[in-house]
Structure formats: structure tokens, C-alpha cells
């Protein structure tokens, strides 16, 4: 698998994500700076890391979503290339319109940084085949703006079409219907607030995140 991690000024989980991708795929991802206009040839997975791109100016992810490389990411997503956005990466994906809704300030205004219980809602996506349906996994979150909101019609549609990949199994940030991660209509773009790259070693306290990358690798190579 030839993966690429997009790096924005203010990204801070890009190296963790690269470590996770290299561990699973056996190949270091290309680190692609936001000013690039093109992705490396043959990129078959794009990962948008967590962090605070552009200092969260204007809105979280708003500036990054308009950076030159994102045009190439949107084009690649349209061609079916898998795109994984974690935390700030999820915020960037909603700001580009690749995923519906918006991530707003946590309902209690607090920065939440801890391991949370997540329910895997749909194991039929590109990204979640490593899990069992309905399984509860433990992955850390670390965010201030993770409160997922969309209008009721959008939420109904996400739920009725199996596009909710992960739901919080506990109260975390006020997200509508406890949504922690969603996929796009075509199923090749996942945005999630929790950090699977921070749960890939026993020393992390959980290896539940590793299975996301392993499942993704198997699906993409299948």
C-alpha cells in the first residue's frame, strides 16, 4: 500500500500516523506538505492527521480545507481513493464538504483528552472490517471541537444508510446521536474524532486502533 500523510502547519499527529501506517503496511508513507498541488503517483490511501492546522483560525479545519493539496485530495476521493481523516483531519473533511455536518466546540467547552469507549456501528466499510459488529473498543480522544452536528435529515440519512461507523459508548462531547465517526456516501472517506494511531502498541494501553489500519490494509489489498 502506498499511503500519503498530508501535513499542514499545526498538524501534530502526522508522525504518529506515519508510525502506525508503516507498522501495518511495512512501508513509510509519503509526507505531503499542504502547499503541494499533487499527490505522489499511485497513492492508494490518503490520511489527514490530527492537530491544530493553521492554529484553528476562523474554524477548526477551515483554512486547511482550502489549501492547495486539498484540491488533489478531493479529486482522489472522487476517484475512489480511500481517505482517512482523524480528529483535525475529520474537521478538514467536513470543511471541504467531503463529509456532511460540522464539528463544533464540545458541549461543555472542555478539552477532552482521555481514552473513550466506542461502539463499532458498521463493519462493512473499507475502514472497519477489522472489528466485530457492535463491538466496544477503546481509543483515545484529544479535542476541543469534536461535537458533531448536522441537521436532523442528514443525521437520519447517515443512520439509515449505515454511514455511522463509530458511536461514543459514553458521553464525550455532546455530539448529535453520539456520532464519533462517519463515512461518505461512496464509502471511501472516513472521518473520526478518536485517534486510532494512539492505540497500536500494548504500551499505549490499547491496541484497538491497530485493527482499523489492519482491516483497511486487507480491504484495499483484497
Amino acid at each position, binding site marked *: 500500500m502506498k499511503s500519503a500523510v498530508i501535513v499542514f502547519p499545526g498538524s501534530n499527529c502526522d508522525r504518529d500516523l506515519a508510525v502506525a501506517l508503516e507498522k501495518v503496511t511495512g512501508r513509510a508513507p509519503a509526507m505531503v506538505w499542504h502547499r503541494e498541488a499533487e499527490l505522489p503517483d499511485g497513492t492508494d490511501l490518503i490520511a489527514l492527521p490530527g492537530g491544530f492546522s493553521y492554529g484553528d483560525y476562523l474554524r477548526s479545519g477551515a483554512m486547511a480545507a482550502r489549501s492547495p493539496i486539498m484540491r488533489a485530495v478531493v479529486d482522489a476521493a472522487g476517484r475512489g481513493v480511500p481517505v482517512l481523516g482523524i480528529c483535525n483531519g475529520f474537521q478538514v473533511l467536513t470543511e471541504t464538504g467531503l463529509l456532511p*455536518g460540522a464539528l463544533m466546540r464540545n458541549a461543555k467547552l472542555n478539552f477532552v483528552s482521555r481514552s473513550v469507549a466506542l461502539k463499532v456501528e458498521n463493519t462493512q466499510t473499507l475502514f472497519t472490517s477489522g472489528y466485530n459488529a457492535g463491538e466496544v473498543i477503546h481509543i483515545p480522544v484529544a479535542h476541543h471541537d469534536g*461535537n458533531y452536528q448536522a441537521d436532523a435529515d442528514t443525521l437520519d440519512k447517515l443512520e439509515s444508510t449505515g454511514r455511522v461507523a463509530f458511536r461514543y459508548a459514553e458521553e464525550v462531547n455532546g455530539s448529535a446521536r453520539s456520532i464519533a465517526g462517519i463515512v461518505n456516501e461512496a464509502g471511501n472517506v472516513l472521518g473520526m474524532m478518536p485517534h486510532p494511531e494512539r492505540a497500536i502498541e500494548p504500551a499505549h494501553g490499547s491496541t484497538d486502533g491497530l485493527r482499523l489500519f489492519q482491516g483497511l490494509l486487507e480491504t484495499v489489498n483484497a
Partner: protein
Amino acid sequence: MKARVFVTLKPGVLDPQGKAIHHALEGLGFGGVNDVRAGKLIELDLADGTSDSEIEEMCRKLLANTVIENFRVERPSTGSGQS
């Protein structure tokens, strides 16, 4: 030429920041506040001749996230337009 863009959360969208401000006002003893909604004011210094539609496009493409926010543009010459 200057224009002012007011970005506000759509009615019904939860505003935790506004709620916190409301709470703080009550803590200071201001009892008569029914509700608080926080927004943004963005001042644009524009080349003469920038059209209303260009400013609106700036709002739609970047300044506001129209999933959750409304915007209103105030220009001294033309008064205000609203989305």
C-alpha cells in the same frame, strides 16, 4: 472600501460559548439576560468596485460555514445584505 461581515450561528444550533457567556453574566449579577449567542465580525478592506456577489462568494466559500452559520454583509455605500 470597507465591508463588515457578521457570521452568526444558525437559530437552533447549540452555542456552548454563548451559554458560557450567559452563565458568566449571571455570575456577575446581571439577572436580566434571556439568552446569549456569540458570533464573529470580519472586516474586509476591499478594492473599489468589488461587487456584492464577490463578497457573498467569499462568505460562502470561506468566511462562513453555511452548514451551521449564517452571514450578513454590511457595506457603507449599499447598506446591508443578508443571506
